């Protein structure tokens, strides 16, 4: 196995290990933040001396470091961990296998995508060692602050530019692969829902990222060439007028940023829906209920996601007409995700559910995503958004979707497809401990956030809002959240140990241990170079479980 490989399986694993490393890094950053919120201005135990005088003084975190940690946590988790894991790792590894193809359509472009991702990620994280530290203007990088921030912000922008190139190339690859390289007999409506989800996700990445790339160029011009795309006239910084041309608009950045960032959240959830659909169909031994509705919903959700972005900007004075438009589209777009989750729930009814570790994570995904989605509704209506905007309610909302939502789906996927990649099983006892620790830990962190937000606690505050009288009734929640963080971290140790141990010593398994119907299981585990010794031919849909009158409870797609 060469390190610069063009084999999609190798590249998928490169994405997997890199993104899991970034996931751990992003988690480590927020552990520090949660400590600071629970025990403000107290010396960080054990590791307080490791961060340098500009960040931590006598063990106590400085506000400047707090904002770096908070901004980079969001950036790393969204752009360097979750999406590369969901699309780069799962998409790359599984899409060619699930459609019966020997590789992706453009293998060398695929390799380039990975190395650009790694390069972009490293550039962004390098910010931590620059004078002034890493980017600290939120993962949203709002000007005017981001325009005048220290060099770490430039690293963020350059890294983001490179990352977007990587993403675009990857998206093109996945779309062309799915459209062009399907095996004979594999019509679009016989595709596993996972593949549909990856297809729509790649469309969103393709079309939504370029405006952010443009915006990054504009912000780089502001920072390096003295332009004022985002700097309004008459800006005063620390008591002195800022020497800039002026005439720009901070709102311009917000529009360009959110034009990407709203479709980005569907990029975060669609692959998760895809994974959960595969695991649930397999675990219930029944065909998925409402496959066509789910496909239609994914397509509808993808298209609509381009016209809802300004619901992140209700407080920018946009006027009632535009506000009404975005409220209506936002309410409409909640419908397809309800259809998808309902279809998955209904799929469970009457099934003989196998409660494997992947199934645990996939089943927990459903109510957790439900909470996340429902808590989004008050944010989509301008009137209720006004008191909730920029509070912890928003943070709780989106973390419910991404953490016990998407991340649970990704964990389910790792446990489910580990035998495909390695020919070994992961340890189910460690997996169960990982699940329960994560489930309790995540709820312990994010449920209180909804309460804190309703009380009015603002986001990104170094002291957790302690100086405000209205936050006093909820301050006591922070220590509970800290201990939940500790529990969550401990639970991940079970996962890491399980992963490493099982790679070497996991129980060897047959080709298709989950008795699944989809094409990736129609070859050896792990698959050979070019995947299928003889190209498969597809004879039926993807979920022919428990066919009436058959001897076994599943009929693989490729079986005549």
């Amino acid at each position, binding site marked *: 196995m060469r390190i610069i490989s063009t084999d999609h399986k190798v590249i998928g694993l490169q994405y997997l290990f890199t993104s899991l490393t970034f996931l751990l890094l992003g988690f480590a950053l927020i552990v520090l933040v949660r400590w600071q919120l629970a025990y403000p201005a107290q010396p960080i135990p054990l590791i307080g001396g490791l961060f340098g005088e500009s960040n931590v003084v006598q063990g106590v975190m400085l506000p400047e470091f707090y904002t770096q940690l908070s901004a980079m946590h969001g950036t790393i988790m969204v752009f360097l961990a979750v999406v590369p894991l969901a699309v780069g790792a799962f998409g790359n590894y599984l899409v060619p296998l699930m459609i019966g193809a020997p590789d992706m359509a453009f293998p060398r472009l695929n390799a380039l995508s990975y190395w650009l991702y790694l390069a972009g990620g490293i550039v962004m994280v390098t910010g931590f060692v620059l004078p002034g530290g890493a980017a600290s203007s939120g993962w949203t990088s709002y000007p005017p602050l981001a325009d005048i921030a220290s060099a770490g912000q430039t690293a963020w922008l350059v890294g983001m530019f490179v990352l977007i190139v990587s993403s675009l190339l990857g998206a093109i690859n996945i779309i062309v692969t799915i459209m062009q390289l399907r095996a004979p007999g594999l019509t679009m409506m016989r595709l596993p829902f996972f593949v549909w989800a990856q297809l729509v996700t790649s469309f969103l990445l393709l079309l939504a990222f370029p405006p952010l790339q443009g915006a990054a160029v504009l912000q780089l011009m502001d920072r390096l060439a003295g332009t004022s795309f985002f700097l309004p006239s008459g800006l005063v910084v620390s008591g002195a007028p800022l020497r800039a041309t002026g005439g720009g608009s901070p*709102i*311009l950045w917000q529009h360009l940023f959110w034009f990407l960032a709203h479709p980005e959240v569907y990029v975060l959830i669609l692959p998760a829906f895809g994974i959960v659909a595969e695991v649930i169909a397999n675990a219930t031994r029944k065909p998925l209920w409402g496959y066509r509705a789910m496909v239609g919903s994914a397509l509808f959700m993808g298209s609509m996601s381009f016209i809802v972005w300004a619901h992140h900007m209700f407080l920018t004075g946009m006027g009632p007409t535009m506000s009404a438009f975005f409220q209506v589209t936002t309410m409409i777009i909640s419908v397809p995700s309800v259809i998808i989750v309902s279809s998955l729930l209904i799929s469970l009814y009457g099934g003989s559910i196998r409660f494997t570790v992947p199934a645990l994570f996939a089943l927990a995904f459903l109510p957790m995503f439900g909470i996340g989605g429902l808590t989004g509704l008050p944010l989509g209506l301008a*009137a209720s958004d006004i008191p909730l905007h920029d509070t912890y309610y928003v943070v709780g909302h989106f973390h419910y979707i991404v953490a016990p939502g998407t991340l649970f789906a990704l964990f389910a996927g790792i446990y489910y497809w580990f035998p495909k990649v390695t020919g070994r099983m992961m340890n189910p006892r460690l997996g169960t401990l990982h699940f329960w620790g994560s489930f309790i830990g995540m709820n312990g962190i994010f449920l209180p956030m909804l309460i804190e937000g309703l009380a009015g606690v603002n986001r990104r505050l170094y002291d957790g809002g302690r100086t405000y009288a209205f936050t006093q009734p909820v301050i006591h929640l922070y220590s509970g959240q800290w201990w939940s963080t500790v529990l969550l971290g401990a639970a991940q140790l079970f996962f890491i140990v399980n992963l490493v141990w099982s790679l070497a010593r996991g129980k060897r398994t047959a080709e298709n241990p989950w008795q699944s119907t989809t094409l990736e299981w129609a070859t050896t585990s792990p698959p050979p170079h070019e995947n299928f010794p003889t190209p498969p031919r597809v004879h039926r849909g993807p979920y022919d479980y428990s066919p009436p009158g058959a001897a076994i409870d599943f009929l693989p797609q490729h079986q005549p």
Partner: protein
Amino acid sequence: MTLARRRSAFGGFLAACWAAASASALACPICFRVEEGPVTDGVRAAVLVLMGVTAGVLAGFGVFIARFVRRAAAGDDVA
């Protein structure tokens, strides 16, 4: 509910609507646009341009998809 009660409930509903619709109820400057200005005009122009470009690109995809569906249905699938 009796007919009389229903009528009075409906009347109350209408009264609430009238009250809400009167300008004094739209006092929030965020919902009720305070002033027209060049910035709001500029934002509106930007949003329309970007949405127009997006609509055009999606329409282009739509044409390809329609053609593809037709060809696939005609059994033009790979042999």
